[in-house]
């Protein structure tokens, strides 16, 4: 076991995956020589050579498009997009090909590839460096979408993603890249994609969140615990396919539901979760299932971003209202 933060856990996991499987290749802008602007790939080029870890020209469509070709031809590419706000040039490749190649060819051509990117905001960055893309990717049939919230989970989920025979969007909450360290086993383990995790069982209200926000939710839990509100907290971990059963079971028990997310509110991931709860636990609902979400605005530049992001206080406040409904 070693203490790792999220970014070192990812670096360690890529290293492990490359050591175990020659077909794993890692690339993107600044990924090779520099080891990534967040240093997720540091040391890999030195260790595995320029053929397996390399810099690309500045062209996201080409990064994803060539990853498709590599996957077709026997590799397991792990492509890095420097920030989620720069993945849009690759949307055509992601929607038209990454998500569809298997179906299009009736199972003949599978695409075992991973597209990693820092996700979400809260890092006082320039415009476009703070985007949350849960809905965009979640709405595309044929994609799996994963968001880890801890170094331990990041390792298990990333290994699962790399070994998955289908494409996985791996969204890394950049806010917590270096926020805390955790014991991460050196050995091999995977965490199944598509399974949520009950972080804390509770009886009064179910809260679902993921990524960086889970940690704010956990803080809110402390506040509310003192007020006698007993939350059940679920880390979604996979945005698509959603682990409905875990959520619905929970809401059937608690009767109350809050989803907390960073993405903009309208047409956001919260809407999907609330709808699933309606579909699976309507008769158990004692209060309107509720979303605590980003405003429907462009994420503000650093001087205003604190208004956009939900902190434990605001989350507690929102949950409290549902608890007392």
């Amino acid at each position, binding site marked *: 076991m070693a203490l790792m933060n999220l970014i070192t856990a990812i670096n360690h996991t890529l290293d492990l995956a490359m050591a175990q499987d020659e077909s794993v290749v890692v690339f993107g802008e600044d990924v090779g020589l520099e080891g990534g602007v967040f240093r997720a790939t540091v040391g890999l080029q030195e260790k595995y050579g320029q053929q397996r870890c390399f810099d690309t*020209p500045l062209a996201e*469509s080409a990064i994803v498009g060539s990853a*498709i070709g590599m996957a077709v*031809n026997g590799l397991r590419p792990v492509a890095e997009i420097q920030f989620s706000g720069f993945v849009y040039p690759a949307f*055509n490749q992601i929607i038209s090909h990454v998500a569809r190649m298997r179906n299009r060819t*009736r199972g003949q051509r599978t695409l075992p590839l991973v597209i990693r990117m820092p996700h979400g905001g809260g890092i006082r960055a320039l415009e476009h460096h703070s985007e949350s893309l849960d809905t965009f990717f979640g709405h595309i049939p044929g994609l799996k979408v994963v968001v880890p919230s801890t170094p331990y989970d990041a390792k298990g989920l990333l290994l699962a993603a790399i070994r998955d*025979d289908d494409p996985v969007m791996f969204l890394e909450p950049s806010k917590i890249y270096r926020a805390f360290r955790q014991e991460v086993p050196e050995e091999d383990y995977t965490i199944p994609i598509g399974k949520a995790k009950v972080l804390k069982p509770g009886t009064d209200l179910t809260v679902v969140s993921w990524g960086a926000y889970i940690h704010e939710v956990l803080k809110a839990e402390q506040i509310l615990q003192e007020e006698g509100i007993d939350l059940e907290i679920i880390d979604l971990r996979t945005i698509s396919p959603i682990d*409905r059963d875990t959520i619905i079971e929970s809401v059937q028990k608690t009767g109350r539901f809050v989803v907390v997310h960073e993405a903009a509110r309208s047409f956001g991931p919260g809407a999907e979760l609330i709808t699933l709860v309606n579909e699976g636990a309507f008769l158990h609902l004692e209060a309107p299932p509720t979303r605590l979400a980003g405003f429907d605005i462009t994420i503000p530049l650093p001087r205003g971003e604190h208004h956009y992001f939900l902190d434990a206080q605001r989350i507690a406040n929102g949950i409290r209202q549902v608890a007392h409904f």
Partner: protein
Amino acid sequence: MLIQEYGPLKGQMLQIMDENGVIQKPHLVPELSDQEWLELYKAMLLTRSADNKALQLQRQGRMLTYAPNTGQEAAQVGPAAAMGKQDWLVPAFRELGAWLHRGVDLKTVYLYWYGNEYGSHFAEGVKVLPIAVPIGTQVHHAVGIAMASSIKGEDDVTVTYIGDGGTSTGDFSEALNFAGVFNAPVVFIVQNNQYAISVSRQKQTKAETLVQKAVAAGIPGILVDGNDLFAMYAAAKDAIDRARLGGGPTLIEAYTYRLGAHTTSDDPTKYREDSEVAEWQPKDPLLRMKAYLINKGVWSEEQDAALSDEYGEYALAVFREVEEEGDPQLEDLFKYNFREMPAHLREQYEQYVQYLEGKVK
């Protein structure tokens, strides 16, 4: 090397056989036997026949939309024939001649235009990617396949197609650039058929030639008479051989003409003069090659007519099979999105089946 003389900025177009089927550059004729050239001509004829049949069936309402490739057969069969057995083909969507020559069953092709996903599922070992409808996207896949070949230390070469319209997409430039940077063993063939639906080549770019776009990526290119089977074969062979030996990518502009409509939904009389089409008719790659072979004494008009009929009947028989196969299985619509069907998808499928059964009773 041909590039020396016919490179992007030489203002020269490689032509080996002229429009009358007469060899003008004997020293450049690739070393195939007459019999082998005849086989390639037959491949073009099969393509033409299958094309005609598809159009005929479409007019009868039996085929759905179809994108004819009449006039472009040499630009397709030539490179396909120059490829090695292990090489990859990454098409755009109008490469019937290349598909068939690379081992794609005509039935599969017809299934595609019939509106069935099995039209993108090829026989085992056929190293061809399915049609890419979004223009420009496929060239990235070709580069990625080629990069993977290099990374794995294999010497497969990848050949990919794109249209003149496609050269305006950012994807095209990005892919050429990637190919250059990674020295990928890939050959890009632009089928410049002078139109992107109604938009003429002149409106597509101010560049005098499309092959000069290679300069932007610092890779070699060559402008070729796309209706000359000899030239297309020679240029492709040159580029493929070079790629296989580690020489990197090449761009080939095949200068040709789409004699038919863009697709069966298109009416070309709306945007081009009949006289223009008439000018291109005598440049038909099949006419030329037939003249050459008849001159050589290895082929005759009679044989040609007979084989053409035979291919037509064959194509019809293949299409009948497609019709008989009927619609895809319902489960197939759900089954192939992931290796394992996720719970929500299974539920959607099962509920729908229940609905259908309820409706039937």
